[in-house]
């Protein structure tokens, strides 16, 4: 191969030409933004869902938080005002649309939650598509947390094994300031004291009552 012409061209022209070619290809290549180029391995995601490896229960999450699981990040994807009124201890607030731009480390365990389960489950798909493997969502959302962790109840006529489980859950509940009950219907109360002037208890209850809508 005769490369004499390369020498005659000179280094500056070669480098400049290379830049021009790379620039021209860049114009045709599409966006390099990772958040927009996420790839999904649909099969492995479906398998994770099937094997229930996609979510945690409120009790599991409570145990992780209490046990100070290394690298755990609890992420509240609801709006900031809702977060300010009430959130799970240790949680941070990141809007669903900001998830893709949030610097999570690969070795962190990310638990997403919203009011119910739907938005957090969608966030789970986004983060998995971005290549994060240790992502979970809280199955029943904040409602499950309020019911199972903050206000666990057991029927007065429950069997011994159920009572044993309940004793363990009660310990966990008290750790987070909850009120385990025997035989009573659960009454939902806010976990975190509501800051004065921001949101009244009545408004919060009204909000809780619309949670049935699913996200």
């Amino acid at each position, binding site marked *: 191969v005769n490369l004499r012409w390369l020498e005659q061209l000179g280094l*500056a022209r070669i480098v400049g030409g290379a*830049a*021009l070619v790379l*620039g021209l290809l860049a114009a045709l290549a599409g966006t390099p933004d990772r958040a927009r180029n996420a790839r999904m391995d649909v099969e492995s995601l479906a398998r994770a869902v099937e094997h229930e490896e996609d979510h945690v229960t409120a009790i599991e999450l409570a145990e992780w938080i209490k046990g100070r699981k290394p690298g755990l990040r609890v992420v509240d994807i609801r709006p900031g005002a809702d977060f300010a009124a009430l959130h799970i201890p240790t949680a941070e607030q990141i809007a669903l649309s900001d998830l893709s731009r949030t*610097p999570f480390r690969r070795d962190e365990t990310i638990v997403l939650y919203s009011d119910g389960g739907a938005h957090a489950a969608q966030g789970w798909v986004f983060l998995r598509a971005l290549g994060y493997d240790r992502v979970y969502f809280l199955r029943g959302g904040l409602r499950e947390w309020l019911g199972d962790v903050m206000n666990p109840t057991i029927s007065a006529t429950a069997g011994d094994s159920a009572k044993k489980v309940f004793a363990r859950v009660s310990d966990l509940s008290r750790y987070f300031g909850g009120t385990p009950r025997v035989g009573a219907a659960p009454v939902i109360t806010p976990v975190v004291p509501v800051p004065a002037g921001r949101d009244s208890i009545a408004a919060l209850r009204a909000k809780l009552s619309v949670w049935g809508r699913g996200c």
Partner: protein
Amino acid sequence: MTAPFFEYGLFGSAFSLIVALVVGIAFGWCLERSGMGSARKLMGQFYLTDLTVFKVMFTAIITAMLGIFWLGWIGILDIARVYVPETYILPQLLGGIIFGVGFATAGLCPGTSCVSAVTGRGDGAAAVLGMLSGVLLAGLFFGTLEPFYESTPHGTFTLPTMTRAPYGVVVFVIVGVALAGFQLAEWIERRAKSGASARSTAEAE
């Protein structure tokens, strides 16, 4: 392996200082090699006799730009995590003017003054001393300066988001502008050289 390494927790802040040192030494070496440690050479930029500064800066810009674009495109670099400085119109306008006056007076900018000082040039050492005193003063009076420092905030701007043009198209346009700029710079340099030689011939006669 995904970059930026620090953002992805590949190393901590202690090791990042070592990385910064190595990168800094390489940067300084390249500046010196391109002649940017000399105030005379830099002043050639303002008199349009020597456009090395322009050529070095623009070469660095398009090299880094193409590197970032393609590393992002093949999935090694997460562009969303590359830090983009925020814009504060008034403080940056004033800072730019002070910087420009200092640059034109000393013939050196912060990076080149360090290179100049390290290679034993007295004017470089003086510029570094001035820079450090300025940093110290700004730090001491930061409480007073802070309201101005944080005034007129406008968040981050990037050319693709501002122009709404696709990222790759912006890259291509900038490469084109740079290459045309290099041609123009060399033409200006040739003209300045021939003008200077014509003048010296005229003086000799």
